[in-house]
């Protein structure tokens, strides 16, 4: 699972466009593996984004979000030097966070 989360945040006309690509298998628990047995559910359940430590987006996910999730959202404002952190937590207790500084 351990791939890196990639965040691209672009300041444009007073808005920060954020694109995030996460690395995660996002198994629904309904898929049969090569051995014919169900692959256990392993997917991100919670996502949070903070700007300078203030929560700005939060999401709950089920297994239907595609593998290696991609999300795009916009933050009103944002300035060079601001710290954007995106983090996720999955149903097996794993988690990951990535930070970028707006330029």
């Amino acid at each position: 699972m351990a791939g890196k989360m990639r965040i691209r945040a672009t300041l444009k006309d007073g808005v920060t466009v954020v694109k995030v690509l996460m690395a995660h298998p996002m198994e629904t628990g309904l898929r049969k593996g090569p051995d014919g047995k169900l692959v256990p559910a392993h997917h991100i359940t919670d996502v949070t984004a903070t700007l300078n430590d203030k929560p700005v987006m939060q999401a709950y996910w089920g297994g239907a979000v595609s593998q290696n999730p991609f999300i795009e959202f916009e933050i009103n404002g944002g300035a060079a030097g601001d710290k954007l952190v995106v983090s996720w937590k999955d149903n097996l207790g794993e988690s990951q966070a990535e930070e970028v500084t707006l330029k």
Partner: protein
Amino acid sequence: MKSNRRRFLTLSLAAVSTLASSALWPLRVLAAAARPEDAFTAKTLDEVYKALGGKPTPSKDIEFKTPDIAENGAVVPISVTSKLPNTEQIMVLIEKNPNPLASIFSISEGMAPKISTRVKVAQTGQLVAVVKAGGKLYSTSSETKVTLGGCGG
């Protein structure tokens, strides 16, 4: 000496509670709802609506972009933009999936009421974007045809 300390404590308590109740503290807005487990395990659209608190009202103020035909049901790009005032949440439901509710995005005041992402669509059917605005639920739906089903079964 004692009364100075008491004054200080009273003042700081007042300051914190003012900050906490002001709009400068978006943490409050986002911390509102716990994860609605029963909505995620519900097996039909109606069951999801029941778990979310009611059937949404159809609305033309939700822009929901989905592909007409998805070559690969495992990765279907969608985007939702809400024009409804006081948008609090954007949710994505996929009618024919074993568990229709795919995601709930909570929109803070600091964020535009729009989201783009990619979802799994098991088979041809309706995708529904549900928006919670001003405490009420609204929705719009769009059909996506799937050539290769998205749940890998």
